[in-house]
């Protein structure tokens, strides 16, 4: 596995020291995923706290607590670690990913002020305690098929390097485990093993990423309804072949 990305496995990591200390400026991305809609079922408590314009000030204040000393409008990896602590979740918790999706965050490990504000507003909260309250709800979003797909798609863009169009294998594996393991544990395990043993691919592109989701949803565990003459990307044809050979015994 490529060593350079070993640290990205631990997203969002506890120790900031291991994070790549790059100084990318945020490049505009070409994400085409839809922005999340807020569920109408917000808890009565949070509705009662809906205060209107005063929200943005509180949101800013909340943001400032975690802001990066070098860049006041960004929360860096350290700040994110702190934020997770205050929210009472592990940084690897999938609800953090869903939160990032609400924020439409462009880059893993960093929240911009505008992103943070947008996310908080969408979730109808303006303080960290309130956010902590509704956090369990974010898990529920994953149970909605359409939302899941959007979050899954978002994950690809979120986890990749901004200038790249592909996701390296190590990060792919980590993200797959994070998102897909609960719903399709066997395929995820197998596929990750396949990725490790094969040598033709060094990364996944968006098409392969999305097709994998489709694969998990429509193909049976014994692969009996898989058609290699269909439109599945070649990497999946190879996975099925490998799978049949390896697991035939």
């Amino acid at each position: 596995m490529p060593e350079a990305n070993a640290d990205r496995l631990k997203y969002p990591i506890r120790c900031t020291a291991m994070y790549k200390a790059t100084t990318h400026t945020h490049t505009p991305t070409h994400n085409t995923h839809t922005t999340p809609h807020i569920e109408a079922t917000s808890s009565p408590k949070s509705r009662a706290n809906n205060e209107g314009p005063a929200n943005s000030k509180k949101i800013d204040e909340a943001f400032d607590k975690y802001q990066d000393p070098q860049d006041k409008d960004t929360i860096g990896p350290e700040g994110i670690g702190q934020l997770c602590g205050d929210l009472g979740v592990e940084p690897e918790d999938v609800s953090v990913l869903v939160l990032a999706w609400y924020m439409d965050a462009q880059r893993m490990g960093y929240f911009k002020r505008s992103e943070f504000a947008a996310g908080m507003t969408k979730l109808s909260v303006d303080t960290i305690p309130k956010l902590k309250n509704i956090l369990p709800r974010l898990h529920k979003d994953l149970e909605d098929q359409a939302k899941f797909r959007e979050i899954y798609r978002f994950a690809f863009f979120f986890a990749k390097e901004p200038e790249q169009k592909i996701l390296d294998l190590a990060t792919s594996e980590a993200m797959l485990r994070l998102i897909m393991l609960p719903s399709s544990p066997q395929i995820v395990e197998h596929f990750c093993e396949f990725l490790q043993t094969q040598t033709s691919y060094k990364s996944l592109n968006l098409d392969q990423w999305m097709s994998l989701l489709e694969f998990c949803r429509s193909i049976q565990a014994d692969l009996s309804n898989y058609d290699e003459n269909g439109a599945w990307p070649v990497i999946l044809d190879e996975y099925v072949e490998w799978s049949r050979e390896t697991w035939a015994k």
Partner: protein
Amino acid sequence: MAASLYTRLQADVDEHIRTSELPRLLGQTSDPTLYLSLVNTVWQEHCEHMIMIRSIFLYLDRTYLMQTQGLRSLWDMGLTLFRAHITTNEEVVRKTLTGLLRTIERERNGETVNRGLMKSLLRMFTALGQYNEAFERPFLEASNAYYKEEGCRKIQEIDVADYLKHVEGRLAEEADRVIQYLDVNTKKPIIMVVERQLLETHVADILAKGFSVLMNETRVDDLGRMYQLLARVSSLEKLRASFKDYIKATGVDIVTHPEKDATMVQDLLDFKARADSILDQSFHHNEAFAYGLKEAFEQAINSRQNRPAELVAKYIDARLKSGGSKGMSEEETESLFDRLMVLFRYIQGKDVFEAFYKKDLAKRLLLGKSSSIDTEKSMITRIKAECGSSFTSKLEGMFKDVALSKDLMDAFAAWQEVQAGKGAMITRPTIDINVSVLTTGFWPPYAPVEVKLPKEFIEVQDLFKSFYMSKYSGRRLQWQNSLGHCVLKANFPAGRKEIIVSLFQTAILMLFNDGKQVEYQEIAELTGIETKELRNTLASLTLGKAKVLNKEPKTKDIGDEDVFTFNSKFSAKLFRIKINSVQMKETAEEQTKTQEKVFEDRQYQVDAAIVRIMKMRKTLTHNLLMSEIIGQIKFQAKPADLKKRIESLIEREYLERDPNNPQLYTYLA
């Protein structure tokens, strides 16, 4: 009176038959042959008697009996009575029949029998109207059983060729038997029995056991016999299938073994010639068979991608080079090329052929290695007839360039004269130069290679360049050093020689003009030749057949510390020596490069096809897109490779997958 006469006659004959003819046939010998003689004797006597009676009572026969309906003639009466008493008698019939069948069996087993006797008895049955019932039916049954047993036994005992000869023999035998003593109407059924039992039931075995052997040994007569015989039992389709399978299997065997590559083309030509002669002589150029041959060859030659096309191109190259068609008359060469064209026609993926043919043609033209320009041109004409002019237009362009270059050289010389006459300051070249100007696009792509040439070379190149530019403005000339070669005049102590060397070899050798030794590093610097090429070139000058340079130390490789000197002891039989043969040979790298270029081109073709199709159709299912692509490209491609191109186009955002239907693609404008 006539009536009573008749009645009394009848009674007499009846009694005679009953009492003196019949007993002679009852309880007699059990030996079938003897019994037959007995029967025959009785019959003959009866006939004689009846004839005599009829002669005596002729008047009765001719008048009363003829006029009276319901009454038979005397002869017929005799027959009727004979039949009633004798030849319906169980013992008589049984023993007679046994005798007849036994005799026939013995004759079939090779014994000589009394055919006259047989004939007589069978005529008897015919006369009595009992032939079919009493003889033919049991005969056919017995024959059926006989040949059934024989067929099953013989097919195991002897090889197929002999078996077929045997069958042929049997058929002739039975036909002869009919002529000799059987009734003519028995011919058809008995022949059918033989055909069915000896041939029809064993067709599969015959083909399985014997066909390949006969084909391998090109046994034209035996195969012809097989054809004739199987035609009789409507089994030609099976023979055709065997023929086709054999051709395909043999062809595939020739083509798919890399260790046999060196002789593949020759083997294919020989095999095709053999198959054709069998088709003509044994199978009478049956159209269905000819078609099967063609299909089988096509399938065989395409069972391996790309390599056969490459090898055919190389084979032609060898024949078109000078000395390639040694020992062959012009007619033979032309016929060989026609036969090569037949193979070429079968190949799919002709672009591989084109790439290699072009590369080899370029070398032949530039190094002057063609044995005859006319033969070259007739080859192009053939290819054009097969593939159309777009295929050959570039090749023809190459010939034009060569011809044009000749004219250019004349013009160059004239131009120099004119310039000198005008008093223009041009340096007259100290060396003769012959320039071939190649139009980019017609010729294979050549990567330009750097080399520092001696001053005189640069001068004459520049002179030519100024001449060329004066003629054609707006063009760019680039010298291709890897293609150039020189004739050097060398003064060896043992004798003056002319050596033909590549430009790289020349650059190196010119460094030794002052007689001193030169080190490897110096050579590298002064010539600027790239390391691998430098080592190869130095090796060709020091380690090859013609060692014009000496090397210290005398190792087998070129090392960085080596020192080189002019070989003053060099001698050779010929005055003109070629050391540039390395230029003509194809390196392994060249071959891979050429192949890769073909594959690259194919990828572009697939991409272009996909974009074209999707642009027109806007959305298309995966399966339909695949079949459309296959319909448009002219070479075989694996579905997985086509899928990869689709994926690549998705990545480059020419197409996308439909979000609701993963099997559907949409064109992105």
